[in-house]
């Protein structure tokens, strides 16, 4: 579950837009489905992960590629047309140094400025890119690069588990209406090795990364305020994706849920009633005044899992420089707890949206 609002915010409402909707029965095919689906209104690729260098210095990273499209209107095939927009975010958290570096990038497809092409095997926005190098279609090896004048990150990402399809029958439902869902696939465990340059210092880093790829057309339901999302990579080899859709009226929507991925790669969906997400200590943003819970208690009843979630760095609110994307909090977290009584630890990423205001729909 990712930034639904973002895509919608970039889209002009086009009456009778004949875009495809995320409907049950969709059959994923890779490598094709790693790349863009222009027949859907919104799409994103999220790369997040926790890294450390040989001395144990820890970092979190996020490289995200968003696409917002609308149906092709006559004459819109022009190179510089504004029908397909691409936003990218690049964030590095220096956990030990206690700082966040964030950069946003916005482009139209233009003459090759941004895109996600199966032909080139690459998802890119300017010079930030994720390139599919080798491996199998469902267990690919990728190269990720993002950088600016202050920081750059180059990673080799090797999938340790095959692609996981979330939800049921090819769709992850977000509400009861037709098409109020997304096609959602993840690489939940990728071994990451590479180089991070931050303000002139170079670090040889390694760690675990996670990739989400989601595409859909319908926006967020009207009764929703936002959502909380977590990726969990436990040291027993289990991965979990959890999301809670927050209702404007309070509490989580019954369409919340998640996926559990076993060490062998097999997975099954988690229902809303299986999980319990309890917010704890809050951090207040100076920039927006929003209060974000940076500590959580997570329970997955059917698996006997109890986890304490702790943000590695509180100030992870990402405020768009251009003001063109919604404000959200996204940062690295640590998990400690028990699984059926046995102690378990893990790392991952936490995303929280709609804390400054409801994630809006349909507006530019």
């Amino acid at each position, binding site marked *: 579950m990712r930034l639904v609002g973002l895509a919608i915010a*970039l889209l*002009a409402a086009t009456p009778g837009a004949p875009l495809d909707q995320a409907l049950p029965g969709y059959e994923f095919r890779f490598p094709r489905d790693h790349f863009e689906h222009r027949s859907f209104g919104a799409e994103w690729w999220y790369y997040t992960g926790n890294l450390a260098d040989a001395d144990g210095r820890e970092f979190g990273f996020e490289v995200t590629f968003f696409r917002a499209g609308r149906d092709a209107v006559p004459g819109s095939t*022009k*190179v*510089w*047309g*504004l029908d397909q*927009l691409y936003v990218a975010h690049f964030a590095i958290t220096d956990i030990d140094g206690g700082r966040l570096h964030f950069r946003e*990038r*916005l*482009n*139209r497809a*233009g*003459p*090759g*400025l941004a895109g996600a092409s199966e032909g080139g095997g690459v998802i*890119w926005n*300017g*010079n930030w*890119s994720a390139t599919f190098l080798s491996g199998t279609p469902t267990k690919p090896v990728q190269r990720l*690069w993002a*950088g*600016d*004048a202050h920081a*750059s990150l180059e990673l080799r990402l090797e999938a340790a588990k095959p692609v996981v399809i979330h939800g049921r029958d090819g769709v992850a439902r977000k509400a009861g209406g037709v098409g109020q869902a997304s096609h959602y696939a993840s690489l939940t465990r990728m071994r990451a090795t590479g180089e991070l340059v931050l303000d002139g210092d170079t670090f040889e880093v390694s760690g675990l990364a996670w990739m989400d790829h989601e595409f859909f057309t319908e926006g967020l339901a009207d009764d929703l305020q936002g959502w909380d999302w977590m990726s969990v990579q436990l040291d027993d080899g289990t991965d979990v994706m959890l999301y809670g859709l927050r209702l404007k009226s309070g509490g989580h929507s019954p369409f919340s849920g998640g996926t559990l991925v076993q060490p062998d790669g097999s997975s099954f969906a988690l229902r809303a009633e299986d999980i319990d997400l309890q917010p704890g200590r809050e951090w207040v943003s100076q920039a927006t005044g929003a209060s974000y819970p940076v500590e959580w208690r997570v329970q997955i009843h059917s698996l006997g899992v109890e986890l304490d979630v702790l943000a590695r760095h509180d100030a992870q609110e990402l405020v768009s420089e251009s003001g063109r994307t919604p404000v959200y909090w996204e940062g690295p977290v640590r998990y400690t707890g028990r699984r059926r009584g046995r102690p378990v630890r893990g790392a991952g990423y936490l995303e929280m949206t709609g804390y400054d205001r409801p994630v809006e729909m349909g507006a*530019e």
Partner: protein
Amino acid sequence: MHRVLLLGRLIVRALLLEPWRSLLTVACVSVGVAVIIAIDLAGEAAAGSFRSSMESLQGDASLEISQLGGVPETALGDLARLEAPLRFSARVEGFVTVLANGERVPLFGVDLLGDETLESAVTLEVADLTTLREGRPAWVSNGMGLAPGRQFQIAVNDRVETLFMQGLLADAGGSGGLRTRMIVVDVALAQSLLDREGTVDRIYVHSEADAAEQWRPRIEALLPPAAQVSAAGSRSREYRRLLNSFRWNLRIISYIALIVGAFLIYNSVSVRVVRRRPLIGVARAIGMTSAMVRAGFLFEGLVFGLLGTLLGLVLGRVLAVGAVALMGRTVESLYASAAPPELAVRPETIALAVCAGLGVSLLSAWWPARQAASVPPTEAMAKGGIEHEAARSSGRWAAWSCGCVVASGLLCLLPAVDRVPFAGFAAAVGLIAACTMIIPLAARKALRALTAPLLALIGVAGMIGSKILEESIGRTSVIVAALATATAMTVSVAVMVGSLRETVMVWMDGRLQADLYVQPELASGEADGSTMAEEAAAKISALPEVALIDPIRRYSIRHGGLPATLALVDFGVQRGRSTIRILDGPGIDKVSARMLSGGCVIASEPFANKHGVGAGDTINLPLGKRSEEFEVVAIFHDYSSERGQLLGHRDAFLPYLPDRRLTGVAVYLAPGTDIEAGRLQVNRAVGEYRLRVLRNRELRELATASFDRTFAITDAIGAVALLVAILGMAGALLTLVVDRRAELGLLRTLGATKRQVRQLVLTQAGLLGLMSNAGGVVLGGALAVVLIKVINKQSFGWTIQFYWPVGLLLSALTAIFAASLAAGLYPARAAAAQHPIHVLHEE
């Protein structure tokens, strides 16, 4: 110490005793300084700070990528993916006319969505996506009379388009307006407005870490071979280089105005030296050292210089307003649309003024001061020694003069330094020196020869007037030299401009042979880049009234670090009726045949001179490959622009430059067709396009007007120099009268009437005017030769046919003569009004 003060007081008091004369000298210096200041300020404003308006949105870019015919936009995509701390920023550029006020401004297309570097160049509030997509939004500089939220129309290429004014542009800080008036739109809209789909005109490379240069090889590897990478702002620098020789020419002319002032200071100080010889003798006799005497007279020069400089600074600032307007027009008509010049008095300008004013004053006072100091006390008490010396040495001066002429001749053979003909300038100064040196001898001979005719014509008063001048030949020479130099300046500039004008007219007669010329309606100048659709040309060609059309496409190119033009025409049409005049190379028919086969060009004379290219050489142009070789088949006469021009066969260049749009079309009507009727038909045929159809005569008138505009500044400086000379003349005559008070008084006591005294002084004025005219014509002629054959040729690369604008010269000379007579009127009256007894008594 108090002795120096005494001397100083002696001098200052003397200056105050003769306020008018002092004032005239100061006025001469100040006008001289003012001209230099005005030219420097205006030059700096119009040329020094010259920025091609196309570079107004450069921001903090460090490199720029451009390509003849445009950079393919796909290159931008390749560059954008380069994993480097660089940002790339594309520009689509062109000129459009705002119909509401007729103003021609640059229009820029920028990536309003993705360009992160834009804020370093301009501030604007980006529209929402729907407006951006469908509303044709434009951002406009303040002061263009357009209101946000309203639609407005522009003429662009051969069409009229409607834009929506979304908002105002501010400078990069967002605090103020932009220096250049402009319109900014999204890159997509700009491409369609300017017919540039698929290409951008420029890609800027920005680097936060100042690392662009080290990435240059990687950047170049991603570009098409014909693309050129250069330091950002190169184009402005190239234009400035092109302007450099023009500025030097103006500067030298302005210095000549100061030389005239120098003569006058010299005259003024030396008159005082002569008049005060007895006093100096006394002062020396009672113990004043020669160094103190010298210091005293130098101090006098310094006072003139200081006052003149101060006044000159103020006056110069005032004159600069006019000069900058004139020069701005010149820069615009000669080069390209430029940002409006801004006047700023810099420390350098003040330093220049002080150096020029004080330096010239001290230098010109040096010689008389030395003379004053060098005479022994006894001799100093006897009057007239200096004149004897002058008379004795005139032969030696004449020999020096011949030496100067020879030296000047040799200097003319030296080449220019980066197109600035310093040797030519030195030759001009040498000629002025030569003229100055020969004048004592020539003037004495002339005055002697004139004695008899004057006696016959005017009577004894005339003869005595002439004799007095002859007797004080040293001073007479200085006055004549001053006025002759000023006259020469006027004459030489008139001859140079007149010759160029005539040469251009004759050239135009030969070159402009078509009946009608069609071009985008509001195109202006060479660097404008407006184009028209090829279909419009086809429609004209299909008319029964039209015998033949000759299409042309011009591109602004850069060659050897200078801007130039590549013009593509149809040599198939040219064949047999070509109006191109070959300067060097095979005949035009052979040339045309060669051009049709491609791989070659012909170069205009200014191009050949600027780049040292001759017929048979090869030059490299960045077309297709990084550099493609082209043979220069011939050099042709061309006066259309100072920018050098290359001419090629259009079809042969289309593979490199596939854009088929045209810059203009020359139309030859069928025999017997009435020109007006033909124009009507052509206008009808292309009614859907915004085109201007000019008759041959109209185009010529436009060209002539543009020529005259270009040289307005030169004429203005000439006029100022003349003003200095006339002021100087009045001062000099006044000096003469005051100096000869005793003689004039004696003449009156011996029975001369007031009328005779007046006649005497006016005769002197007339004689000085006449000799100055004669000297001025000779020196002016010589200077004109240097200007035309050396300075202009080296600066601009033009061969100018010598032509004497007789009428203009005659009227100028008459004016100078009349002015010198007029300058004598007051001194004549003053001399006649003196009471003889008082004068004698005083002495």
